């Protein structure tokens, strides 16, 4: 069973993290989903795979009417990110799905029609949510060739998709990174193998270093807070990537 936990709240502006599904079958990768609500407008970040839809839906419905989700942000095209799209559209056919222009012709295989998608150009764009402006931040080739992060300047939260992802051992259920050095061991193999471009990595590190970030939320594993965000960027900038395990 997944749970929805409030990680930021300021008046009508709120972040929910939908995390840790202990009942999820072992053969499916564990994912985090995030719901950002602002003045009644709601965007779901990386809604997850079709198979975990029931867990995500039920977790959200304990604190928010899921039919009011009117936007979806898909960091990239992977099935663990967006294959539940058709299910969300069952509840609200008007949902707009924001994603890299590259995947506009691919994701309809998971669901959605001609009016569902809002293509994000390579240099990113602003996404209006309630009275706030969110930002789609380029993170191409990390790991997907059309890949974006989502930055909320008000909450100072960066949703980083697969960047910062850690595949934690069973039982390691902390919402936040508690011990960076221990945590990062579970992220290392993933970043070495999945991330392919040194240049893209350097671009990303420079770009996000310019943002004011209090929390960095990955699609897999625990959330980085405070100084751990900087630690992650430094660690990543030094990491040798694009290597096969020998």
């Amino acid at each position: 069973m997944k749970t929805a936990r409030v990680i930021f709240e300021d008046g009508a502006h709120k972040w929910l993290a939908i995390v840790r599904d202990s009942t999820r079958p072992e053969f499916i990768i564990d994912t985090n989903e995030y719901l950002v609500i602002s003045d009644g407008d709601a965007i779901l970040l990386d809604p997850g795979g079709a198979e975990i839809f029931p867990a995500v839906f039920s977790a959200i419905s304990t604190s928010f009417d899921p039919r009011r989700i009117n936007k979806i942000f898909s960091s990239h095209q992977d099935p663990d990110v967006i294959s539940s799209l058709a299910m969300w559209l069952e509840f609200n056919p008007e949902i707009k799905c924001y994603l890299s222009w590259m995947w506009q012709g691919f994701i309809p295989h998971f669901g959605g029609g001609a009016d569902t998608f809002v293509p994000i150009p390579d240099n990113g764009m602003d996404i209006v949510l309630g009275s706030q402006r969110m930002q789609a931040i380029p993170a191409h080739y990390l790991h997907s060739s059309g890949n974006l992060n989502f930055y909320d300047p008000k909450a100072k939260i960066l949703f980083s998709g697969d960047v910062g992802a850690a595949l934690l051992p069973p039982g390691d259920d902390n919402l936040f990174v508690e011990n960076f050095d221990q945590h990062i061991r579970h992220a290392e193999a993933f970043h070495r193998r999945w991330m392919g471009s040194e240049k893209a990595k350097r671009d990303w590190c420079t770009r996000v270093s310019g943002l004011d970030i209090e929390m960095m939320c990955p699609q897999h594993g625990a959330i980085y807070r405070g100084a751990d965000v900087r630690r992650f960027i430094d660690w990543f900038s030094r990491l040798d990537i694009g290597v096969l395990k020998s």
Partner: protein
Amino acid sequence: MDNLRTAGESGNELRRIVRINEEIKSVVATAFKINLMAMNAIFLAKRAGQSALGFGVLSNELRRFATDLQQQMSTLRETTYGSVSTVTSLLKQARTSRILNRTRKESDPAGRVIVDQLLRQRDLSTLARSKEQLAALNRRLSQMIADTTQLVELGSVLARSAKIEAAYGGGFSASLMQVSSDFERTIGDIQHSLEKLTKHHGDSRA
């Protein structure tokens, strides 16, 4: 729960249609041989000429029958292809229903109310529409199976007459008898497949 049953039912329907499609394919494959046999009968009748006039008349009938059968088979095949898209959309809906039912089970009362509302809507719209599609497909199939059975019955009568005429074929009697018997056996095979098809098609609809 009602929707759970619907999901299970559409799963059965899918398996049934796939099986029927396979059976139709075997009917089509057997019917293909009929054409060659009819050509062979015409060729033999020409060679026999005056000594097998009755068979000559019949061989033309056989040829016409073969053409009609071929026509019927291509319509049948088209329906088979068409049913694949119906089946695919049903499959997708069955998966959606399955996930929705799981969602319902896992949700607390607030979520369950929302899922129930959607399930009711789906029952009225999407599912009703696909049930209609499926019913139309079944009606079309029934009609075609009935038409084909009738046509093949005619083929069976022709085969029996051909055997009788073959006996009056003089020196060609043995080879005319051979071709008539082959014809009769193949018609028998088609009839057998059609009976199975009729049974399976009728079974699940009862």
